[in-house]
């Protein structure tokens, strides 16, 4: 038989749907409905991994998301999924499962040698050694790095896509066990919008694992029926396979839905996962509880399992996790497991119960079945290597009670509510002595129900769930929930647990006893940590790495709290647990990124002329979100050639530039002029309609924030241009002042950046081009002088034309509605063709403006530059206040040795200075070497036939003509330069006035 440990009846698996997956290449037969873990167990595979530090053999411990051991690698190549839990991964046909963290094989792992030196590498050993010789650290580290880590990252980009959904509801129920199902049912009944999420493929929670009845039917049947009702209700969204991994402030809950395609080998490009971002009005938390492991020697051997998990494998998956069992418990629930095992024909050789007198219904029944029960007994030690072989029992006083052979050792140390989500949002919890665990305090926006609230009886759980659902719906405004009757179940009573943390007396010496199986944190490690003063639970965590693994200590932390409390002789409530944080279960980065990758990573903004630029062969540059034409190389041209050609075309004939990305703000109202006076350094009220002016805007710290031209459209309307990058920030800044500080000013601001496209014609022939394209605007110099604007038509399209210039040439900036801009652009290009019109990009624009010494905010300036520093002191009005003015008279703002804008000319005219290169008085080997400033812009100027550069140099303006040196970046050379006036071309500004 291919599945020797498959029980021949029962279970929720589909025996008609067999399938095969592989584990380390070995074929594993299983059924639809199996997890990888149940499939492995059915085939007798119990060794599934090696531990993180000591590489000890490890097996399956649980049947859920809390497993500390069962990490495997799924698939390979681009679709591989590292560190997945076998216990929650559905078995699918052809799935390739591999172990992690062992080499060359799981059976024979060379690193298990660490086990031999374990006594010398306790928690934090690396803090005490590996320090000498100092230069060996990289070597030690190399070794540590390769020993650590678990699975392997994929080796190629992710072929999957990930979906994101925003959802709103009245009641979100997390967990679809009996409590959650009852809650969802009650809440849905009121008409409230309900979302019910459960991380498992099948709703039902613990009902799927036990043989209990609800409303007189087997638990699973009741769950199925309830699910059917819920799925039929239009106001309910049922989300199986969906983990709530984070609860944030404002009650934002994050769910990760595992789609069927979240398998390494699926084909196609469907979604790998879906993130739900839920903003519920109310939350019902029905996440159940995690069973607590117990301490004894070798408690990590494969075959040592949580008792509840054994029941799950037997009842839900029809798998016998072993052939002869011993159980070790401090509460009644393990007896249920004993009965389940017996029912399935698996002998239970012994139950060691910490309690001296276990006499509830369940223990009595177990005794009646003839199972040997050892009261007041514990497991001292587990024998066996790659699998548990026997359990050594003894009394609490340490008296041996015999060694019982077994290959399965079920443990149950009680139950700790899965309050992770509640705690993530700093919801308050309290120590519940009857549970010996923390339980959430209700209120704080959540309604806990069932095991998470500390309720371990089924009938009470169902009542509590129903109540929580109704209460939550009522709190969300739906008040008829009390009509729903709670489903019924047998009221059973369980005897209280007897907390068992630290094995008493000599028992504690058995070695090793693992508190955190994933991180290989032992009882001795906790002792060492406390001994060395790392006493706070957060110190213990960080020093020993307790709970820091991929399982986040779901099993370990509740145990550690009790153990530490006992070691310190303190109340567990005062010890606490390490802070809970998202994610409850890990979530892939791609799923969190969602659609915002690849083409949808971030909006790419383009102008109406984009396709024209593409056809014309433009290369593009990212400027913020904008994609702008950078230069237009012709076949065979380098960037340098293309830019030189474009520059000369503008200087000699005419060029055309798409400058649509500039910000444009209409400033309207009777106080518009006053407003501009306050936000710009210069004066605006007296600007005549039809005229333009260049303005500088400062932060209140006096530093240049933005610059641009503003035109007065008419008496009460101005049009402000901002730099591309600052379009949004400037508008926000202006609105803030207007609304919060000067609400008395009657001014309205409206962004028209996108309505108007801006086409710049520049060069001596630009007037001719504009005329040829057809315009009703009179273009003669006296009719339309420099720094004015006219309204009219260009190429048949309504236009605002500005005679302003960023190149120093005769120039028109033609604003036309964006929906007809392409037409106008083409008309201008056509009209200009006989005149040699040349499209130019941002690079040429930069060269041209640098030849004129015009600054670019963000290139010449860096947030520490005043108007005076860049030689624009004349724009500072003395007669009025404006934003930032006061800062200009602070002591540091008036230092004579501030960095100032100068030009730099290299001795070698062919030498283009490196941008960013630093300027010094005299080169030398001394470090640090005093620096005078740095090169902000540097180009080869085709019209001048030589290189030019702009630089910010300390006290620069006072020392024009001085000999300075610029450092190269790569080859340790010094380039001799002379400082000069930063206007290299047409210093009188004659050309723009023609």
């Amino acid at each position, binding site marked *: 038989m291919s599945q020797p440990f498959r029980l021949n009846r029962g279970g929720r698996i589909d025996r008609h749907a067999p399938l095969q997956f592989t584990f380390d290449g070995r074929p594993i037969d299983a059924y639809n409905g199996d997890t990888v873990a149940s499939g492995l167990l059915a085939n007798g595979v119990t060794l599934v991994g090696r531990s993180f530090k000591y590489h000890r053999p490890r097996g399956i411990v649980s049947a859920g998301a809390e497993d500390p051991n069962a990490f495997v690698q799924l698939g390979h190549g681009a679709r591989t999924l590292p560190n997945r839990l076998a216990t929650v991964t559905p078995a699918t046909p052809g799935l390739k499962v591999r172990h992690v963290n062992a080499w060359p094989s799981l059976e024979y792992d060379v690193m298990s040698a660490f086990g031999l030196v374990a006594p010398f590498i306790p928690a934090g050993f690396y803090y005490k050694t590996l320090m000498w010789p100092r230069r060996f650290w990289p070597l030690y580290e190399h070794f540590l790095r390769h020993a650590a880590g678990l699975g392997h990252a994929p080796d190629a980009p992710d072929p999957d896509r990930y979906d994101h959904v925003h959802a709103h509801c009245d009641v979100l129920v997390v967990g679809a066990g009996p409590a959650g199902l009852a809650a969802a049912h009650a809440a849905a009944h009121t008409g409230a919008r309900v979302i019910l999420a459960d991380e498992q493929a099948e709703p039902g929670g613990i009902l799927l694992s036990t043989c209990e009845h609800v409303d007189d039917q087997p638990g699973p049947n009741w769950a199925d029926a309830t699910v059917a009702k819920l799925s039929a209700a239009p106001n309910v969204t049922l989300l199986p396979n969906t983990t709530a991994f984070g609860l944030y402030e404002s009650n934002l809950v994050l769910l990760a839905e595992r789609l069927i395609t979240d398998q390494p080998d699926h084909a196609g490009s469907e979604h790998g996962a879906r993130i739900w971002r839920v903003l519920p009005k109310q939350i019902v938390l029905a996440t159940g509880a995690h069973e607590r492991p117990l301490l004894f020697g070798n408690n990590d051997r494969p075959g040592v399992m949580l008792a509840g998990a054994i029941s799950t494998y037997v009842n839900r998956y029809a798998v016998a996790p072993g052939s002869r069992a011993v159980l070790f418990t401090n509460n009644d629930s393990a007896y249920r497991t004993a009965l389940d095992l017996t029912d399935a024909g698996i002998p239970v050789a012994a139950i060691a119960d910490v309690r001296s007198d276990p006499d509830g219904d369940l223990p009595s029944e177990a005794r009646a079945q003839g199972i040997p029960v050892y009261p007041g007994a514990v497991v001292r030690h587990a024998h066996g290597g790659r699998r548990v072989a026997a359990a050594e029992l003894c009394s609490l006083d340490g008296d041996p009670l015999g060694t019982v052979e077994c290959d399965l050792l079920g443990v149950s140390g009680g139950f700790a509510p899965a309050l992770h989500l509640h705690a993530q949002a700093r919801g308050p919890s309290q120590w519940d002595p009857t549970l010996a665990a923390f339980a959430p305090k209700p209120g704080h926006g959540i309604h806990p129900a069932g095991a998470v609230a500390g309720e371990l009886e089924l009938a009470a759980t169902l009542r509590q769930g129903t109540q929580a659902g109704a209460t939550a719906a009522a709190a969300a405004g739906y008040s008829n929930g009390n009509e729903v009757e709670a489903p019924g179940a047998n009221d059973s009573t369980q005897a209280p647990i007897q907390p068992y943390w630290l094995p008493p007396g000599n028992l504690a010496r058995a070695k090793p006893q693992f508190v955190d199986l994933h991180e290989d944190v032992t009882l001795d490690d906790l002792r060492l940590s406390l001994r060395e003063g790392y006493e706070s639970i957060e110190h213990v965590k960080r020093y020993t790495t307790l709970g820091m693994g991929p399982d986040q200590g779901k099993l370990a932390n509740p145990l550690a709290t009790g153990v530490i409390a006992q070691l310190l002789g303190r109340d567990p409530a005062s010890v606490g647990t390490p802070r809970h944080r998202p994610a409850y279960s890990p979530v892939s980065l791609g799923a969190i990124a969602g659609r915002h990758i690849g083409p949808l990573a971030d909006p790419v903004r383009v102008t109406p002329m984009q396709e024209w630029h593409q056809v014309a062969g433009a290369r593009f540059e990212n400027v913020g979100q904008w994609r702008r034409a950078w230069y237009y190389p012709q076949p065979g041209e380098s960037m340098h050639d293309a830019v030189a050609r474009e520059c000369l075309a503008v200087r000699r004939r005419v060029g055309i530039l798409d400058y649509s990305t500039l910000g444009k703000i209409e400033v309207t109202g009777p106080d518009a002029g006053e407003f501009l006076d306050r936000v710009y350094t210069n004066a605006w009220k007296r600007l005549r309609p039809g005229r333009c002016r260049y303005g500088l805007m400062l932060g209140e710290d006096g530093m240049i924030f933005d610059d641009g031209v503003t035109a007065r459209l008419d008496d009460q309307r101005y049009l402000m241009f901002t730099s591309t990058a600052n379009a949004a920030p400037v508008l926000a800044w202006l609105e*803030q002042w207007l609304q919060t500080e000067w609400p008395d000013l009657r001014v309205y601001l409206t962004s028209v950046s996108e309505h108007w496209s801006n086409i710049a014609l520049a060069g001596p022939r630009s007037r001719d081009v504009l005329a040829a394209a057809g315009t009703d605007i009179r273009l003669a110099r006296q009719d339309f002088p420099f720094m004015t604007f006219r309204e009219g038509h260009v190429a048949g399209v309504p236009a605002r034309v500005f005679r302003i210039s960023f190149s120093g040439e005769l120039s028109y900036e033609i604003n036309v509605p964006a929906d007809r801009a392409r037409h106008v652009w083409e008309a201008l290009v056509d009209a200009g063709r006989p005149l040699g019109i040349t499209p130019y990009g941002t690079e040429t624009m930069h060269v041209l403006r640098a030849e004129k010494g015009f600054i670019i905010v963000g290139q010449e300036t860096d947030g520490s530059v005043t108007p005076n520093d860049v030689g624009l002191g004349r724009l500072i009005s003395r007669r009025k*206040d404006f934003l930032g003015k006061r800062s200009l008279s602070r002591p540091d703002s008036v230092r004579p040795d501030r960095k100032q804008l100068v030009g730099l000319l290299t001795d070698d005219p062919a030498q283009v200075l490196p941008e960013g290169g630093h300027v010094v008085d005299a080169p030398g080997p001394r470090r640090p070497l005093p620096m005078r400033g740095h090169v902000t812009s540097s180009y080869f100027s085709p019209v001048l036939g030589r290189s030019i550069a702009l630089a910010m140099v300390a006290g620069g303006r006072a020392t024009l003509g001085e000999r300075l040196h610029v450092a190269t970046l790569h080859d340790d050379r010094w380039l001799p330069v002379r400082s000069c006036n930063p206007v290299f071309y047409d210093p009188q500004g004659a050309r723009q006035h023609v």
Partner: protein
Amino acid sequence: MLLIPCPWCGPREDDEFTFGGEADIPRPTDPDALTDEEWADYLFMRDNRRGRHREQWCHTAGCRRWFIVERDTATNQILGASTYDASP
């Protein structure tokens, strides 16, 4: 994620908003009359309170209005919101 109560649009997620820092820092009417210290106090010094904090927000992706929110900076609990002219 904060839900910011826009006095006009109601609670919206915080990425629709721009945070504008502490409220109630009026711009001096005559900056030139201030000492450097007084100007620095206006410009840079902040209460940065842990606890009740009055602050400015703008519903940037919504109605573009600036308004004042009171929030406990220790817990991020929102305590209230008001408009500049107090009459939405």
